[in-house]
C-alpha cells in the first residue's frame, strides 16, 4: 500500500530502532505504523503536563495495542515524561520500560496494556467517569485493526454509543494486520454500524491527522468519534514495510546500519 504521506518523523523512528536494537526486543513495524499519529496527538492536541503526570485536568491517551509502545516511549521522551536514560534501559532489569507499557511505573502511561481488547473498555470507563464529573477532559484510545478481532472491542463500542460518550475518540491503526487473517475487513463500515461517527485518514499524513483531531475538538457531546487511520507497518523504511518477518524481528548490526541509513 502506498499512501501520500507528509514528511515522516525520522527522529522518532530512529529512537525506536535504537531502543529495539539495544534492548533486543520490541515491535518496530507496529511502532512505525502509529508513531506519526502519536506525534501529532501529543504535540498539538493532548492536554498533558510532564511535570504532573497525574494532573486531574489532563486528557487521557490509552495505547490499547500495547505492543506498539516503543513509539509511545519515544514520544513520551520527546515530550519530557521520560529521560534518555529511561530509553537506554529499555528491556533491562534496571529499567522501567518493557515491551508492553506499565502504568504503575512509567510516567505518562495511563494503562497497562498488551493483552488486546482491554483498552477501549477501560477508556469507556474513564470517559464515563469524566462525564459523571462533568469534566471537560478528553479520552483518546488507539486500537489495532487486528485487535478489532477481539469481541470486547465491540462490546465497548456498543456501550460507548449508548452512553453517548462524545468525549471519547478511538483511533484505529488500520495497518492491514487484520485482513491477513480475515480479509472481509471493512473497518470503517463496522464502526459506522456501531453508531460511531467515523472518518478515514492517512495515518502518516499530518494534515489529515490534524483535520481529524480538529474535528474531534468540535465533536458533538453525545457521539464518540472513530478515526480509522490507514497506515503501513514499518512505514518509513522500505526493507521492513509490510507484514511478515519484521513483526518482532531484532535488527542485526548490518540491518541496523541499513535502517539508520534509510532514516538519515
Amino acid at each position, binding site marked *: 500500500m502506498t499512501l501520500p504521506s507528509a514528511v515522516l518523523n525520522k527522529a522518532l523512528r530512529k529512537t525506536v530502532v535504537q531502543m529495539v536494537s539495544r534492548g533486543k526486543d520490541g515491535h518496530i513495524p507496529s511502532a512505525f505504523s502509529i508513531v506519526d499519529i502519536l506525534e501529532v496527538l501529543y504535540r498539538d492536541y493532548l492536554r498533558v503536563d510532564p511535570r504532573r503526570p497525574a494532573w486531574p485536568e489532563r486528557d487521557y491517551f490509552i495505547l490499547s495495542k500495547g505492543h506498539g509502545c516503543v513509539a509511545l516511549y519515544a514520544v513520551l521522551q520527546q515530550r519530557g515524561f521520560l529521560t534518555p536514560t529511561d530509553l537506554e534501559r529499555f528491556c533491562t532489569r534496571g529499567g522501567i520500560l518493557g515491551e508492553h507499557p506499565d502504568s504503575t511505573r512509567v510516567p505518562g502511561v495511563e*494503562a497497562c496494556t498488551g*493483552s488486546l481488547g482491554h483498552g477501549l*473498555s477501560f477508556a*469507556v*470507563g474513564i470517559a*464515563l*467517569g*469524566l462525564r459523571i464529573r462533568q469534566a471537560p477532559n478528553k479520552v483518546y484510545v488507539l486500537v489495532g485493526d487486528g485487535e478489532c478481532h477481539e469481541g470486547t472491542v465491540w462490546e465497548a463500542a456498543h456501550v460507548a454509543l449508548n452512553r453517548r460518550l462524545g468525549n471519547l475518540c478511538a483511533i484505529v491503526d488500520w495497518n492491514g494486520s487484520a485482513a491477513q487473517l480475515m480479509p472481509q475487513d471493512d473497518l470503517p463500515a463496522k464502526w459506522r454500524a456501531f453508531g460511531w461517527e467515523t472518518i478515514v485518514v492517512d495515518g502518516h499524513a499530518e494534515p489529515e491527522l490534524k483535520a481529524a483531531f480538529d474535528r474531534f475538538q468540535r465533536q458533538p457531546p453525545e457521539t464518540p468519534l472513530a478515526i480509522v487511520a490507514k497506515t503501513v507497518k514499518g512505514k518509513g523504511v522500505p526493507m521492513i514495510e509490510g507484514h511478515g518477518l519484521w513483526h518482532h524481528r531484532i535488527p542485526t548490526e548490518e540491518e541496523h546500519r541499513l535502517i539508520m541509513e534509510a532514516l538519515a
Partner: protein
Amino acid sequence: MAGPNLMRQQFADTMLAVGQEDPDLVVLIGDISHFILQPFAKACPGRFFNVGICEPTIVSMAAGLAKVGFAPVMHTIAPFLIDRSFEQLKLDFCYQGLGGNVVTVGGAFDYANLGCTHHCYDDFALLKALPGTQILSPASPVEFDALFRQTYRNGLLTLFRLPARVHGQAFSREAIEVGKGLRLTEGSRLTLIATGPQLRSAAAACDPLREMGWDPELLYLHTIRPLDTALIRESVRKTGRVLVIEEHSWSGGLGDDVLRATHDLGGIQYASLAIPDAFVRSYGTYEEHCEALGLSRDGILRTVAATFPLEKEVMR
C-alpha cells in the same frame, strides 16, 4: 430460616446508604438486580448503569472509573464476573493497582437448577491467585453492610460473594471486622471452620458432636483473604483436629489455606467438606445439592466419625 433474598436486599440497602454518603460510589450491573437497585438509582442519579450483557467490558469500565477516582461496584452472577472476566480483573484492576468491588450472587451452586454454566465454585481459588485482592464471604446482612463499609475503597479488588441463604447466626456489628474470624464456641478436641451459609450446618452439628464425645470449637470466617491465620493456628494447635466446611471446590479454597496455615504445627488431623473434583451436574434444590455433597449437619457428623479415628481417646 431466613428468606432467600436477604443478602441481595442488604446489598441494595447498603448501596443506597453508602451512595448517599459518598458521591464517588458507582454501581455497574449486568442486567440483574435492576429493580431492587432502583432506590439507589433514584437517590444517586447518574451513578447507576445497567450496562448490558458484556461482563468483561463492565469490569474494564469499572477499572476506568477507578482510574479517575470513583469507587466502582460490579454486580452480576458470579461465573460471568469471575470466570469469564478473569483477565479483566487480573490486568485492569490488580496489575494496574486499582481498587474496586465485585458483588456476586449465584456463587457455588446457588442457582441449583440452572446447571454448571451458572455455578461458580472456583472464585476463592481464582481471586486468591491475584495480588491485591480481598475475598469476603459474608452470609448475614449485617456482615455485608459492615464489611462493605470497612473496605469498599481501600484500593484493593474485593470480592463479596453473596449467598442465596443466610447462616442464621446473629453477630453484633462491632464483632465484624475484615480479616478477623469469629470463635463462636470454645472447645478442646476438634476445630470446625465454616464460611458462608455452611455456618448453619456447622452450628447445627455442635450439639450432636458433643453427644458423640467431641468437644468442638467452632470458628466462622467471613473473610477468606486476608486469612485470620492467628485464630486458626491458635485453635488447631489446641484441638489437634480440624474440619473445614465450605461451598467451594476442594482445590484452592479455604481448606487449602487452613492446611497451609497449620502444616508446621505437627500431628494435626485434617478433613475437608467441599465440592469434589467434578462438576455438580445434577439438578434439584440448593438443599438437595448440599445434602448430596455432605455439606450438611449430617455430612459433618459422618465425616468426623469416618476421618478422625480417635474415638477411644476422645471418649476417655
